[in-house]
């Protein structure tokens, strides 16, 4: 089955995007674990919920992605994909001893190169790792190897500079992109 949009990650940002595109009449699927720590409800009207699952592999064609496959073996094809997998808790970002990576698309991650600067020993001081994340262009396209993926966007905490202390995530840019692309 071919979707207009597949949203990967069911937290506040992922649910916000899925809700908006579904309301606009796009065929949307949402892949997530269960209810996220953000409290957002992944049961969105009109959205196919792929629950208790995670996207583990992406298939590419040219500058874009044709499908993602989940841990339960379901292959999801879509015109556009939205990465909304959050930071470290749900493994949207994975930290190794000296680097931070984004495991699904292996996209460009902005992080502090000097590991000793990742955190401040003073618990109440600003923590650098809370601002790590993937890089996007002005339209929200995910950057991989320095170039934007033509049909993959990123929203929410997975994005560099987005901090959990901020209660709302700016998703309108990406939402507008997705809806406009469908209209064409």
């Amino acid at each position, binding site marked *: *089955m071919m979707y207009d949009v597949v949203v990967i990650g069911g937290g506040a940002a992922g649910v916000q995007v899925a809700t908006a595109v579904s309301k606009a009449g796009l065929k949307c699927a949402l892949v997530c674990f*269960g209810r996220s720590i953000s409290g957002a409800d992944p*049961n969105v009207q009109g959205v196919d919920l*792929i629950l208790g699952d995670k996207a583990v592999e992406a298939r590419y064609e040219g500058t874009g992605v044709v499908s993602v496959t989940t841990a339960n073996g*379901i292959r999801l094809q879509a015109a556009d994909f939205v990465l909304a997998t959050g930071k470290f*808790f749900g493994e949207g970002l994975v930290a190794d001893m000296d680097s931070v990576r984004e495991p699904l698309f292996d996209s460009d991650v902005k992080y502090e190169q000097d590991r000793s600067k990742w955190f401040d020993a003073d618990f109440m001081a600003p923590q650098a790792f809370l601002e790590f994340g993937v890089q996007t262009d002005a339209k929200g396209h995910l950057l991989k190897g320095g170039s934007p993926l033509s049909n993959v966007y990123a929203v929410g905490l997975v994005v560099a500079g987005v901090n959990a202390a901020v209660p709302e995530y700016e998703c309108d840019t990406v939402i507008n992109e997705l809806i406009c692309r469908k209209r064409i």
Partner: protein
Amino acid sequence: MQEKNISTCNLENCQKCSICDTVCPMMAVNPEYPGPKQAGPDGERYRMKSAEFYDKALKYCLNCKRCEVACPSGVHVADMIAAAKLEHGGQTRPLRDTVLASTDLVGSVASTFAPMANFALGLSPVRHLMDGFIGVDERRTFPSYANGTFVKSFDPSTQKGFDRFVTYFHGCYANYNFPQLAWDTVKVVNACGYGVHLMKGEKCCGVAMVANNMPAQAAKNARRNVGCMSRAVAAGEPVLTSSSSCTFMMREEYPNLLGVDNSAVRDSLMLMTKWLYELVEAGKVKLVFKPDFKMKASYHIACHMQKLGWQYYSVGLLRMVPGLDLKVLEQNCCGISGTFGFKKENYELSMRIGSKLFDSIRKSNPQYVITDCETCKWQIEHGTGLEVLNPVSVLATALDLEATFKANTQ
């Protein structure tokens, strides 16, 4: 430095986020159940020190796996609880539990005397006696037994004309209670141009035995089933099933809980709806539907089906049926958990758990409910009065079987 997890259930990954507790259907209604976080990773740390820390309240765990579905950290919470029950839950049980779990034995006897058995089980005085003496709640309607099993009525010679075959694991429900489902499966498979083989020596998958603390008997059945399936797979045939719980049991619980290696068959063992969906999507099978088929139905995702993630395939097939107005319900546990809900001491809990699902079904106002699990079917029929159908039965009714056969055999 410890480089990787040493526990088998990823106990070390638990972040204590408690999301598992928020989705546990038992914890929501029963203050005596400590919830998956405590029954699972918290309790496991104590049980590893000493068996005396085993909490008897784990008997309330339904094995619905919703905690595992929700866990963001990859902890096998439900497996951990199930393993603890098998190890520490004790090997003694009331005769009732042994009887409820021995579906092959009860099924063979009851289907031999089906008219008498069904008549007796339908009488309130009989059910009242069962309630008082062996503890099967009298409010439960017992599933009726078929007059003769599916296997006895299946004539292998009818399948001779095909050059491609699948093997069908019918399971206890389709064999002893509802052969109509098995016949619907054979009809649809045949219409797709495939013949059906049955396995000699198929046994109950054992899911009820595990739930009633009979691991040795379950493992015995498991080894027997894997043996039969290996022969089918070696002959190049996939093994197709009708029940989501049987499928989940044989694919996942055989290796994870019973230590029975199924690696030779697991990839070829699947629900009939997955097999069919993938063939249709690949353009290898064509489905021709009746133009005048009309139905309004709500689809219930059974808990084990949700764990597999395979409602994607059943719903995918149902969406191909023109004239089927289908609503996919938000996933909720029906509360029966197989033999659990039949027991007198569990009936109230079972119905309280299911009430959320019953309400959402009534709100969606369907003619029928569709689901892949037979015990969910019993519970939903009991709780809502609506008829519940298996997706394959819906397909068997909606398909123009002759036209489909022609389209697939030219």
